[in-house]
């Protein structure tokens, strides 16, 4: 499988990464090189093979459903590019 330029633009939008027209052509070549490389997996017979879900066999641990951390909004917001009144601030989302 290989990607065309429209697909590159669509994937860039899905990934929320702005791309310029110049970059689209470059990315198309690079993405197709990587996709061509992984194409060889088609040779492997995987009929009846379970996909890997946990590389070391283990049961997912459970914990009590209680609040164990928190109550320091100023620390949570300390690295925010924009914060107001104890909240993260973003451009207007709802019209």
């Amino acid at each position: 499988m290989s990607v065309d330029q429209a697909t590159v633009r669509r994937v860039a939008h899905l990934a929320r990464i702005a791309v310029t027209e110049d970059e689209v052509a470059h990315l198309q070549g690079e993405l197709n090189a990587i996709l061509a490389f992984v194409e060889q997996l088609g040779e492997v017979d995987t009929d009846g093979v379970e996909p890997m879900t946990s590389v070391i066999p283990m049961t997912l641990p459970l914990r009590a459903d209680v609040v164990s951390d928190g109550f320091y909004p100023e620390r949570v917001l300390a690295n925010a590019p924009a914060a107001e009144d104890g909240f993260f601030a973003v451009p207007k989302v709802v019209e």
Partner: protein
Amino acid sequence: MTDLTRLSLTAAREGLAEGHFTATELTQAYLGAIETAGALNAYVLATPEKALAMAKASDARYAKGEAGPLDGLPLGVKDNYAVEGVRTTAGSNILKNFVPPYESTVTSRLWGDGAVLLGKLNQDEFAMGSSTESSAFGPTVNPWRRAGSTQPLVPGGSSGGSAAAVAAHLCAGAAGTDTGGSIRQPAAFTGTVGIKPTYGRCSRWGIVAYASSLDQAGPIARSVNDAALLLRSMAGHDPKDSTSVDRAVPDYEAAVGASVKGKRIGIPREYRVDGMSPEIVALWDKGADMLRSAGAEIVDISLPHTKYALPSYYIVALAEASSNLARYDGVRYGERVPGRDIVEMYEKTRASGFGAEVRRRIMIGTYVLSAGYYDAYYLKAQKVRTLIKRDFETVFADGIDAVLAPATPSPAFGIGEKSGADPVAMYLEDVFTVTLNMAGLPGIAVPAGRSAEGLPLGLQLIGRPFGEEALFSLGQVIEEAAGRFEVSDRWWE
């Protein structure tokens, strides 16, 4: 006084315990070495004030007889470990001003055992690379050079800053991370020892995520024994990481020097890849002889799905990366580029904050997870991963204790040599290392010889799940036979 930065961790620990020098003096010696080594670009941030404060506290513990197993030993930490109050960037512009208000579990274990933080070490951006060239801080330079040449070489990656700092004696040891070879390949390129433990052995909590089902923390050190000492402190159960394993941590140092007599070592025929350099083949044979001389039995084995480890790795790793890195949206932390609306803000923020390799990997990961392609790529790769793990299970069930393989297809290469138009050329660096991450197995890289041009070459030992002790025993045999690898020309000073 002799140069304190020449001491092994064990010798430094003895010197501190016996009062030959203080943790403050040891730390000052390393801080002095860091100051003269700007040309290597191994550190992205030195933390001298914090280091001296930690050293002073360590001296007080020695005075009171309360010293921990790593007390007063100055370490460097890869920049993807969150250290409370210390800028943590993972080599990315998108995190260039990020100061974590929390501490990673592995580093808190190191400080809990008394270690001193010297600073944060350079890496490929988000650990995505095999040369440390993709860092937002520029490339790290390998302290090693080819005989008669001044051409700057890469230290490998992504833990290239860690490996270069250890090799150049800019820290007594370092904490790195390994997703596809990022501890073992730089260790091999710099003549140092690096171990990627079994998946789940070290907590991933507080480490900037790349590919969560593959990432593991581990040490880089100047000897097998030093690596064992560090891993003992780094490993252990952590309820904050649901994939962390609740299993006692053995005394890894006790395994160093243990007999390897009767151990069965597999030589996988599929690792003899096309175009492999004759000196790597010779090194591999030499390594087998070293282990045989120590009483191990060498057995030819087959790991039939080896060839498919790299392509399946690049699907699994990039898919997980695209998901993990979705968090960098310019809202909760990291840099923000304003836009007309929120979508444009996301797109501009991520286009400007991520470097080219990271953008490329996120886009591939997004593509392979997108509607209509999930089964063909991601599900297929996870099935192949099951087969890769089964290959190892089969040989271990047949009585193989460990597998011996090269760590890298070649010695360190020049800066710029593999960062051209074809990303796959760089990906091939990981051909011998990714299989372990895919199978969750531990692997140690130990320097074993030199290239014709005088550069260090490493061998890799692959163990059973939680078989780190056997790796330390076998690694020590190679270290004793091959000797230590020290950079003789300190050209950067």
